[in-house]
């Protein structure tokens, strides 16, 4: 803790509960205060100094922790100060005799809303903790300071009451002038949420204000609905008709639901099972006259009382009140039982209260198992015992238990336990921590979660030497392909090694092809491609090897051409290269490529006529068309001409088009009538339709009629 504390010895410390769990307030010899609001995170706050403390001394102080703020209230002589994180304020206590010269004791209520001050005159001042409002005052006339002074009130009670203790006297003071006094020896008071626990050397008692409901029911001659219902039930048991009278009285006032609720509530405040039963039976009796009263409260109360009675038993020894139990929640109760290793009772309670497994039974079993792994028994026995008990209970994490075992230095037991873990994903991190990489890899693959596989692979990569690592991967194809993907994006060089290791020539070749495209220099690219050719050959992929050889040939040719002509050729496809050459009129080079690369005639013809048409070299086109019989027919000629808006040239080739395509050719050049004539002559339905689809308003009527007639004729056929 802070240096302040190491230099000055602590004279007093008060432990308090805050919104952040438990805190400690510390007073040093130098009259300086420090506060830790949560002992878990140990952040320490130095509070400002209080002026004059050194001289006038400090008589008493207390902690108020409200709304996430912690303040100290302290008394020095006749002054009261409120100290918070950045200021110290002097306060006047309202309604207090000005003659007071000092305060001997002070105490804050459990919820920090109220404060009690004990003065040197024997007067007890009770008020709000902000010291703005006075609630009451009691003069007990003792001048000796009490050993202890604590609040005794239940939540939402309007009665301020304080319990004071002297050597042999216990005094309860409140608003009234009277006090209650008990003779006692040697005891200690513990203020709690709804009362005061009195711990003596031989006894343990609980002092609390009688709850309003109990008072109403059990008060002599009470006419409260609950009291009447209880009475009715008593009469009913005696088989007396008075039962009906009482019931009627409640029902006439429409108070039966209230009566039932009162009885249920009162049962919660009672400690004797017999009294609880009496009240609950009365409630149940009243309930049977109500048609739409939800049974939930009744059932919950019965269940919870059963639990409370069980933990109040002396063998367990947790004398919780109902209010405290509700405040704590079942979860905390179970945790406390687990902490005391009362596993069977905890499990029974979980089952009885029907708590969801992962918060209830599984939770308890997990703690039991974590305790079990610390026992000095053989690993096998423990693993067996745990599995026997836990089985496949939902929400059990065997890996958590295994982690505990590993923590306790029992890795073998941890592995045995991990084997029971159904979620393979959960096993992996621990296995890695235990340096069981291979096992972790198996489990990761089993889970199907590729991220886990990656995680293990990366771990193995760092842990193993390269050779072993590759060998391991080889045994696990899933891991191998994932690692390949990783390398593709992150470590290109490793990828090559990996393929080499596996003699995967095909992939290696692809790798070189890819590499070659990273290179700017043609020579380097050729070298890379040459490696690819070798690998493709080794992979017996003759096609790819040959194609890549061709690529090298083309690259070299393009390079040469580029040097000669200063035009960019490299990286164009063979097709595009030839096309540019044709456009530029380098027919010699084009021819050379056509021959060297064995470009099919058909494609070469397409290339040539497209290029010629594009550069409007109609003369050359016509010459070419006559050079030999076109392998692509003559419709192609018509098409390229039309594409470049030269119908005149196009028409030259129409006559050469084969009869089946003639209709199309005529239509292309816009000769609808000729097309129609041929279509009608050929009686081909598709052709006729085609022509008809081109007819429009301006077309000759008679032509359309003829076409339609021919079509119907073709249809019949």
């Amino acid at each position: 803790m802070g240096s302040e504390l190491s230099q000055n010895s602590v004279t007093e410390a008060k432990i308090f509960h805050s919104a952040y769990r438990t805190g400690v307030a510390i007073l040093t010899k130098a009259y300086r205060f420090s506060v830790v609001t949560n002992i878990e995170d140990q952040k320490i706050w130095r509070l400002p100094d209080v002026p004059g403390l050194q001289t006038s001394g400090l008589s008493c102080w207390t902690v108020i922790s409200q709304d996430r703020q912690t303040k100290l209230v302290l008394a020095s002589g006749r002054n009261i100060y409120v100290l918070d994180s950045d200021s110290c304020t002097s306060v006047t206590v309202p309604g207090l005799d000005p003659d007071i010269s000092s305060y001997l004791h002070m105490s804050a209520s459990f919820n920090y809303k109220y404060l009690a001050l004990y003065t040197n005159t024997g007067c007890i001042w009770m008020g709000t903790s902000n010291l703005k409002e006075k609630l009451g005052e009691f003069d007990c006339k003792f001048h000796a300071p009490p050993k202890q002074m604590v609040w005794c009130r239940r939540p939402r009670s309007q009665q301020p009451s304080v319990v004071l203790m002297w050597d042999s006297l216990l005094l309860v003071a409140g608003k009234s002038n009277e006090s209650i006094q008990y003779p006692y020896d040697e005891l200690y008071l513990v203020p709690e949420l709804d009362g005061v626990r009195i711990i003596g050397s031989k006894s343990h008692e609980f002092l609390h204000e009688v709850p309003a409901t109990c008072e109403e029911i059990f008060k002599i001659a009470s006419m409260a609905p609950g009291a009447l219902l209880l009475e009715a039930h008593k009469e009913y048991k005696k088989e007396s008709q008075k039962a009906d009278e009482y019931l009627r009285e409640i029902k006439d006032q429409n108070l039966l639901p209230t009566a039932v609720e009162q009885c249920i509530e009162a049962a919660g405040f009672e400690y004797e099972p017999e009294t609880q039963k009496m009240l609950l039976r009365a409630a149940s009796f009243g309930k049977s006259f109500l048609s739409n009263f939800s049974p939930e409260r009744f059932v919950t109360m019965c269940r919870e009382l059963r639990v409370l009675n069980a933990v109040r038993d002396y063998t367990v020894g947790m004398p919780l009140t109902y209010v405290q139990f509700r405040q704590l929640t079942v979860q905390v109760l179970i945790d406390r039982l687990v902490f005391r290793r009362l596993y069977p009772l905890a499990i029974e309670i979980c089952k009885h209260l029907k708590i969801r497994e992962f918060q209830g039974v599984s939770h308890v079993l997990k703690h039991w198992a974590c305790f079990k792994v610390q026992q000095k028994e053989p690993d096998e026995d423990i693993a067996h015992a745990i599995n026997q008990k836990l089985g496949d209970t939902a929400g059990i994490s065997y890996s958590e238990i295994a982690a505990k075992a590993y923590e306790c230095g029992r890795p073998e037991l941890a592995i045995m336990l991990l084997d029971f873990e159904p979620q393979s994903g959960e096993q992996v991190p621990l296995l890695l921590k235990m340096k069981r990489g291979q096992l972790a890899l198996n489990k990761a693959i089993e889970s199907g979660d590729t991220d886990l596989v990656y995680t293990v692979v990366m771990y193995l990569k760092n842990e193993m030497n390269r050779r072993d690592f590759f060998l391991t991967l080889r045994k696990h194809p899933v891991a191998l392909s994932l690692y390949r993907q990783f390398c593709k994006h992150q470590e290109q060089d490793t990828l090559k090694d990996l393929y080499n290791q596996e003699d995967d020539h095909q992939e290696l070749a692809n790798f070189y092809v890819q590499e070659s495209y990273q290179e700017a220099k043609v020579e380097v690219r050729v070298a890379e491609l040459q490696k690819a050719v070798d690998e493709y050959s080794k992979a017996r992929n003759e096609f790819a090897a040959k194609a890549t050889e061709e690529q090298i040939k083309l690259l070299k040719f393009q390079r040469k051409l580029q040097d000669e002509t200063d035009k960019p050729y490299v990286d164009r496809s063979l097709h595009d290269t030839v096309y540019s050459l044709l456009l530029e009129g380098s027919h010699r080079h084009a021819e050379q490529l056509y021959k060297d690369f064995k470009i099919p005639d058909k494609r070469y013809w397409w290339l040539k006529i497209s290029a010629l048409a594009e550069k409007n070299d109609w003369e050359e086109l016509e010459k070419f068309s006559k050079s030999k019989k076109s392998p692509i027919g003559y419709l192609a000629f018509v098409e390229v001409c039309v594409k470049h808006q030269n119908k005149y040239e196009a028409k030259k080739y129409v006559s050469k088009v084969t009869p089946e395509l003639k209709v199309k050719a005529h239509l292309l050049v816009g000769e609808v009538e000729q097309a129609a004539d041929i279509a009608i002559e050929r009686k081909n339905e598709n052709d006729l339709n085609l022509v008809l689809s081109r007819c429009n308003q301006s077309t000759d009527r008679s032509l359309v009629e003829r076409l339609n007639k021919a079509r119907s004729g073709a249809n019949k056929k």
Partner: protein
Amino acid sequence: MAAHLSYGRVNLNVLREAARKELREFLDRCAGSKAIVWDEYLTGPFGLIAQYSLLKEHEVEKMFTLKPGSLPPADVKNIIFFVRPKLEIMDIIAGNVKSEVKQRSHRDFHILFVPRRSLLCEQRLEEQGVLGSFINIDQYILDLIPYDGDLLSMESESAFRECYLENDQTSLYHAAKGLMTLQALYGTIPQIYGKGECARHVANMMLRMKREFAGSQNQILPVFDTLLLLDRNVDLLTPLATQLTYEGLIDEIYGITNGYAKLPPEKFIQKKQGEGGKDLPTEPKKLQLNSAEELYAEIRDKNFNAVGAVLSKKAKIISAAFEERHNAKTVGEIKQFVSQLPHMQAARSSLANHTSIAELIKDITTSEAFFDNLTVEQEFMTGVDTDKVNTYIEDCIAQKDPLIKILRLVCMQSVCNNGLKQKVLDYYKREILQTYGYEHILTLNNLEKAGLLKLQTNARNNYPTIRKTLKLWMDDVNEQNPNDISYVYSGYAPLSVRLAQILVRPGWRSIEEVLKMLPGPHFEERQQLPSGLHKKRENRTTLIFFLGGVTYAEIAALRFLSQVEEGGTEYIIASTKLINGTSWIKSLMDKLEAPPF
């Protein structure tokens, strides 16, 4: 906003709401004003879950796209990275954070991983020394995104490539997880059928995950009766064929991404009187396409040839409805007319939009190129001359038509011939390399690896047997009033959907032989239901999951089966991604570009 998700048999809005709730909760965990830095890939899928307004309600004030370097200035307390778990992305984030730290900004950093946290990525952040800078590291489990009333998608573009080329089954793990989420919301699915390696793997993972959660029994009455898992590689043919439904064609021609299509704007100009078309819009028109639009719901799944009739009928109805105003005499009648006006106007603008789209598509479908291409496709699918080099493909290569078109056709021929002869295959490959460039050797290699291109082995061509047994080709197809699923491709009945159809009636046992010819195992698994949840319902619901992508035409075919009475079941469709032949082939291509000289 998303009412159309709850129209169907299964209320998929439940899933969307669950996803939205989770998003809101995460945003609230980062108290104060925030800026989101987006992995660009995620914005589309997220749009299906939440609009900007939701983010704004939770104090998101700025949005940036993830880029290397430093973050743009923004006066916000929190910076949240919405990213996929990828190492490259982690490096960018680390760079962003480091430069922020250098500038001594006092911002809180958070990461939201979609769809799952990754140890690997967190390690990378740690290596980069920035892991400690993050206040929240969380995951946003977004496996199956509700896309439409009967459609879920993982929007995972590369799923097919990863599964079949790279042997990376990450997306299958997410699929299995997504199915577990679905089961948590809609009850355990009692029957699981599947065909294919990936299907088997997903089913295994599901059963395993179920064991992991043993004990926490799901007490929800099952909504789905059956789950059918199908590998895309069981049916490689269907996506290659050109889809002929309205929605399919929009996707083929313009592409639909995350439910939106971008269309050429010319046809959508509002003709205002007295104003010449002075400023032509250059931005493409972006339209959201889903069943929320009444008209679209009606025509999306029709064969395109049947769409015109519907549109003109609709036009008549709408103009008649507008004419009604002349008949409205009393104040009450006028009031009633006016109250209907917004709905009528919406219908009119919807009609105008779809008429424009239909015109755009018609220009293409009536073109010769489209017709020729379709003819060749249909020849292949009917088994005509699939063993020879096809002249049309040859001519297309010679004229350097788009490479993807060529690849689609060649692959189709290969699939319809159960592989090509060495001579034919080598010829095509050589032609492609010479024409489009040698760099495509890797793409061709990929296609071979995926089985789309294949060398015919000694085995007999079994495609005709498959075609005949499964009735994949129907000659008498009725496009207007279909009586069979084959209407979606004007003759070809998608193999995948046939498998689903036969599974319901008469059962897969009747086609054992054919199932053996298709790749991967077929299987059946049962999941025990808690007693009391067995239902006796006549209306069965099947969840069909396409691992590796599904086309709009297949979806249309399944919707058709859901509607016909003898179908026997209604379908909810899930997929890793909505694909078409082009996007699919593209995902399998390797782009190689040389650095400039």
